[in-house]
C-alpha cells in the first residue's frame, strides 16, 4: 500500500514513564489518616476481650495524595482501549461509552441494597426485566437469566441446566461434544458438571462437519457445545443440519456467545436451533473489561429449559415487578443476590443508545474491518482459512517462523509500534495463531496504520529477525521472564521494608 515509514514514526512514545515502588514500600505518613469525625478512637471502650482482637494489621498508613499519585502512575503503565488499538481476538475490545459509567453510578443504582423492600427497588427490577427481554430478542431465545457473573459462569449454569433437563426426562446423559477449536472454559465448565468431554475435530475448512458430529452422536450425548461464529472467526455453515441432528438424537445445543459481535442484528442463534446461549456483556455489549473483570454473562434459553433457570427470577405482575424463588425445578442459586447489576445497567444503556439499527451497523462494520485486515495482510501473513470471515480473522506465524520469528515475537514487536498485540496461540488448532479482532470502533485510518506496522514487522522478520525476537524495546520493561516467575513463585510483597522509600529495590 503506502511507502515504508520507519518505526519511529509510529505511535509508541517513551516520554514521562515513572518508576513507582509497591504501595507497601512507600514511606508511611501516619498523620495522613483520613479523619472521620475528628475524634480519636482508643478502643478502650470496646467490651470485646483482648484475645478476640488482632494485635497488628501490617498495611501501610498513607496520605490521600500519596495513594492518588501511586495509582495514577500505575495506571499510566497500562495500555487500554482508551489509549489505542487493542485487536485481541475473541475479546471484542470495542470502545466503552462514558455515559454507561454515568448511568451505573447514579445513586439510585449504586447505593441500592439488594434486600431493600420490593417497593423500594422497582426501578432496578424494571431495568432487569427490560434487559432480559432485549437480550432474548437479540438472540432469538425465550427467557434470559442475568445472574451469571461472566461467560464461564454462564456456561456452568447452562450445563447444570442441561444436566437437570436430562435427569428430569429420566435419561441422565454423560457426554458433551466440544469442537477442538473451543475456548478452554467450555470443557472446564463441562468437567465441573461431571460431563465427559468428547472432542470433535474441525474439518479442512475449519468448520464443524455433520459427518464428524454424526460419528459421535449417540443416546449418551447430553449436548453439543459450539461457538458461532467459531473461534477461527468463521460462521458455522452447517449449523442448521447439525442442530437438527443433535435434537433428533435427543441432545441439546449450547452456543458460546463470545462472538455475537458478528451476528447481532443480522441473524439470531435462536433461529439456528440453539437451545442455550450466553452473552458476554463485556464483549458484545460494550461494558468495560476492567483489567480482567467484572463482566457479566446472561444466559438465554428456549422454553423447554425455562423451568431449570436459576433463582430468583424477575416477574412482572400488573405494573409491579417481583423477585420470585418458587420454581421447584430450578437448579437453584448460582451466586449471591441477582448478578452483576452494575454491569447490567451499562449494557442496558448501551443498547438504548444504539437501537436496532445501531446494533446492526456495529456488526456490519466489525465484519468489514476484520475482512479488511485479512485482505490487507494475506500476502505477508499466512491465513489458514483464507475466505470471507466474520468479526475476527486468524493468521498464523508460518511465513515468519521460517526466519525463526514466532507469534510471540510478532506480538512483542507490535508493542514498539504502539499497538496492543492480537490474541496469540489460540485457537489451539492453528499452530502459531494470531487472532485479530478490530471491532467496529476503529477508523479506517487506525486500521491502515496497523496494517503498516504488521507489514513492517514482516519485513523485519525477514531482514532483522533478532530485532523482532528480542522485542519489545520501547516499553517500560523488556520482555518479562515468565518461566522464572513460575519456577519460584513470589505472590505477595515481603514483610520487611527496604531502606530507600522511592527507588525500586534491586
Amino acid at each position, binding site marked *: 500500500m503506502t511507502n515504508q515509514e520507519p518505526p519511529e514514526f509510529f505511535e509508541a512514545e517513551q516520554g514521562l514513564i515513572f518508576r513507582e515502588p509497591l504501595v507497601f514500600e512507600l514511606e508511611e505518613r501516619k498523620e495522613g489518616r483520613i479523619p472521620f469525625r475528628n475524634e480519636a478512637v482508643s478502643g478502650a471502650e470496646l467490651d470485646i476481650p483482648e484475645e478476640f482482637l488482632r494485635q497488628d494489621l501490617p498495611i501501610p498508613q498513607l496520605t490521600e495524595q500519596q*495513594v492518588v499519585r501511586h495509582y495514577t502512575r500505575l495506571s499510566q503503565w497500562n495500555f487500554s482501549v482508551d489509549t489505542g488499538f487493542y485487536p485481541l481476538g475473541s475479546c471484542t475490545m470495542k470502545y466503552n461509552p462514558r455515559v454507561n459509567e454515568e448511568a451505573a453510578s447514579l445513586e439510585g443504582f449504586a*447505593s441500592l441494597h439488594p434486600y431493600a423492600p420490593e417497593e423500594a427497588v422497582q426501578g432496578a427490577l424494571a431495568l432487569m426485566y427490560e434487559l432480559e427481554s*432485549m437480550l432474548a430478542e437479540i438472540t432469538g431465545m425465550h427467557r434470559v437469566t442475568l445472574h451469571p457473573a461472566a461467560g464461564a459462569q454462564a456456561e456452568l449454569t447452562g450445563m447444570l441446566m442441561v444436566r437437570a433437563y436430562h435427569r428430569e426426562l429420566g435419561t441422565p446423559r454423560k457426554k458433551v461434544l466440544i469442537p477442538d477449536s473451543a475456548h478452554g472454559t467450555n*470443557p472446564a465448565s463441562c468437567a465441573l458438571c461431571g460431563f465427559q468431554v468428547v472432542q470433535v475435530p474441525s474439518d479442512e475448512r475449519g468448520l464443524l462437519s455433520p459427518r464428524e458430529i454424526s460419528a459421535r452422536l449417540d443416546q449418551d450425548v447430553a449436548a453439543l457445545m459450539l461457538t458461532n461464529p467459531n473461534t477461527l472467526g468463521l460462521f458455522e455453515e452447517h449449523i442448521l443440519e447439525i442442530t437438527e441432528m443433535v435434537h433428533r438424537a435427543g441432545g441439546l445445543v449450547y452456543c458460546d456467545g463470545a462472538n455475537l459481535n458478528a451476528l447481532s442484528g443480522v441473524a439470531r442463534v435462536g433461529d439456528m436451533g440453539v437451545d442455550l446461549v450466553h452473552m458476554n456483556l463485556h464483549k458484545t455489549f460494550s461494558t468495560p473489561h476492567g*483489567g480482567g473483570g467484572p463482566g457479566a454473562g446472561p444466559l438465554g434459553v428456549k422454553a423447554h429449559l425455562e423451568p431449570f433457570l436459576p433463582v430468583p427470577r424477575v416477574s412482572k405482575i400488573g405494573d409491579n415487578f417481583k423477585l420470585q424463588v418458587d420454581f421447584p425445578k430450578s437448579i437453584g442459586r448460582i451466586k449471591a443476590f441477582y448478578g452483576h447489576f452494575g454491569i447490567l445497567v451499562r449494557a442496558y444503556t448501551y443498547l438504548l443508545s444504539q437501537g436496532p439499527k445501531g446494533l446492526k451497523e456495529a456488526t456490519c462494520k466489525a465484519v468489514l474491518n476484520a475482512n479488511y485486515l485479512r485482505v490487507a495482510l494475506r500476502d505477508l501473513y499466512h491465513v489458514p482459512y483464507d475466505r470471507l470471515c466474520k468479526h475476527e480473522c486468524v493468521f498464523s506465524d508460518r511465513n515468519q517462523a521460517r526466519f525463526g520469528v514466532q507469534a510471540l515475537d510478532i506480538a512483542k514487536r507490535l508493542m514498539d509500534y504502539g499497538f496492543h498485540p492480537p490474541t496469540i496461540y489460540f485457537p489451539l488448532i492453528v499452530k502459531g495463531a494470531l487472532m485479530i479482532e478490530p471491532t467496529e470502533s476503529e477508523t479506517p485510518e487506525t486500521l491502515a496504520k496497523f496494517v503498516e506496522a504488521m507489514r513492517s514487522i514482516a519485513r523485519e522478520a525477514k531482514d532483522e529477525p533478532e530485532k523482532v525476537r528480542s522485542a519489545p524495546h520501547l516499553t517500560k520493561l523488556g520482555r518479562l521472564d515468565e518461566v522464572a516467575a513460575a519456577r519460584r513463585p513470589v505472590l505477595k510483597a515481603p514483610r520487611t521494608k527496604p531502606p530507600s522509600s522511592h527507588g525500586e529495590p534491586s
Partner: protein
Amino acid sequence: MGLYPDEKKQALERMLDFVGASSFEELFREIPHQVRLREDLNLPGPLKEWELLARLGSMASRNLPSPQVVHLLGAGCYNHHVFSATKSLIRRGEFFTAYTPYQPELSQGTLQAMFEFQTYVCRLAGMEVANASMYDGATALAEAILMAQRLKPGRNRVVISGAVHPEYRAVVRTITEPLGLEFIEIEPDSSWETHWEKVEASVTSNTSCLVIQNPNFFGTIEDLEGLQRAGETIHKVEGLFIQVVVETTSLGLLKPPGELGADIFVGEGQPLGLPMSFGGPHLGLLATKEAFLRQMPGRLVGQSHDSKGKRGFVLTLSTREQHIRRERATSNICTNQALCALAMTVQLALLGPLGLKEIAVRSREAARAAMEALAKLQGMIIPQRRIYNEFVVQTPVPPARLNGELLKRGIIGGLDLESFNPAWKGNWLLCCTEKNSPEDIRKLVLALGEVLR
C-alpha cells in the same frame, strides 16, 4: 448507512470494494438465507445521550438508595463509605478499559495493582497466599469446597455451620451438586452462635472440610474456644478448616482467620471499597497456605524481572487454569473481578490500619448503641452475647409489618429472617455501619415506639 456523514460513507465503500464485496449484505453471504433477519430487531432506541440519562435517571429515582433513608440492612451487603478517591482512581480509563494482563509489558499497572491486592488479602486475613479474586464470597466458598475435595479425594462429607449466609450455602449446593457431596448443616444455637458441640460431633474421617463464617450471618463474633476445638477436630481427621468473612471491615479489629487455624480463607470484599449496587458486581476473596497453592483456583500474579533485571509482574502458574488445562483445570474461571479488586486495594491504601480500625469500631459502636436502645423496648428480645455490627431481635410484631411501617417513616429496617428460613420466623436482623449516626438510632427508636404502641 444513515448514521455516517458522506466522507465516511466513501471510506466504507472503498473498504467494501477492497474486500471484494458490493454491499454489507454480501459480507454475510455464508449465513443461510432462512435465518437472515429481514427486519430490524424489535428493540427500543436509539436515544440521544441526554434522553438516555433522563430515562436511566427516572428508573434510578424509582429506587430508595441508602443516602435517602435511615439504612439498617446488612446480611451480606454493607453500606460502608467508599472514598471519592477510590471512585476516581478506578474510573481512570487506563485501568477500566484495559484487558486481562496476558501481555505483561503493556499491563504493569494492572499487574502491580493485583500483586498489591494479593498482598493486602494475605495481610488482612493472616494467610500465606491469595489469588487475584473470584466473583463473590458465595462462589469463592463453592470454589474453596471444590478445592478441599481435590485435596482430599475420596472424602465426600462437608460440615457447614448453619450460621453461614443462607445464600452462600445455597450457591455451594448448586455448584457442587454434580459431585454428590453430603452436606451436614448445623443449626445455630439459641443465641445465634455456631453450635460447636454438634459441629464437632459431625466431623468424621470422611469429612473433607469444615466451614464456618466469622462474624457469622447473624453478626455474632464466634466463640474463640469453639473455633479452636473445631479446628483441632477437623485437623485430627486431616480435613481442611474453611473460614468465611463476609463483613470484611471486621478484619480491621478482630483476629484474622490465619491466626484462628484456617486452612482456606474465603471473603467478600464489597464492604472494603465497593458500592452495594443492588448486589453486584462484588468481590470474592480466596487465600490459603503455600502447601495448597497448586490446587488454588483463579488467577495469580507473580513477581518477575525483564532481561535487564528490572522488577515486573506477570500472570503465573497458569497451568492450573482453563486456558491451559481445559477440562483438567482447577476451575473454569476466566474473567474475574479485577476492577473490583483494584477498588478494594485503593480503599485499603487510603484507609490504612488506623482508618480500617476506625470504620470497624464505629460500625460496632453504632450497632451496640442500637442494640441497647432496642433491648429497652417492650417485647424486643436480643439473646446475642457478642456482636460485630449486626444483631438479631426477636420482635413482638412480625418484622415484615415493622419494616412496612418504618419505610413510611423513611427507614429501611432490618432483614426479616423468615424470608430465609421459616424456623427463624419473628426474628429481625439489623445492621449498622459508621454511617449510622446517633440521630439515626433516635429516629429508629421513635418510629418503633409509635409502631409498637
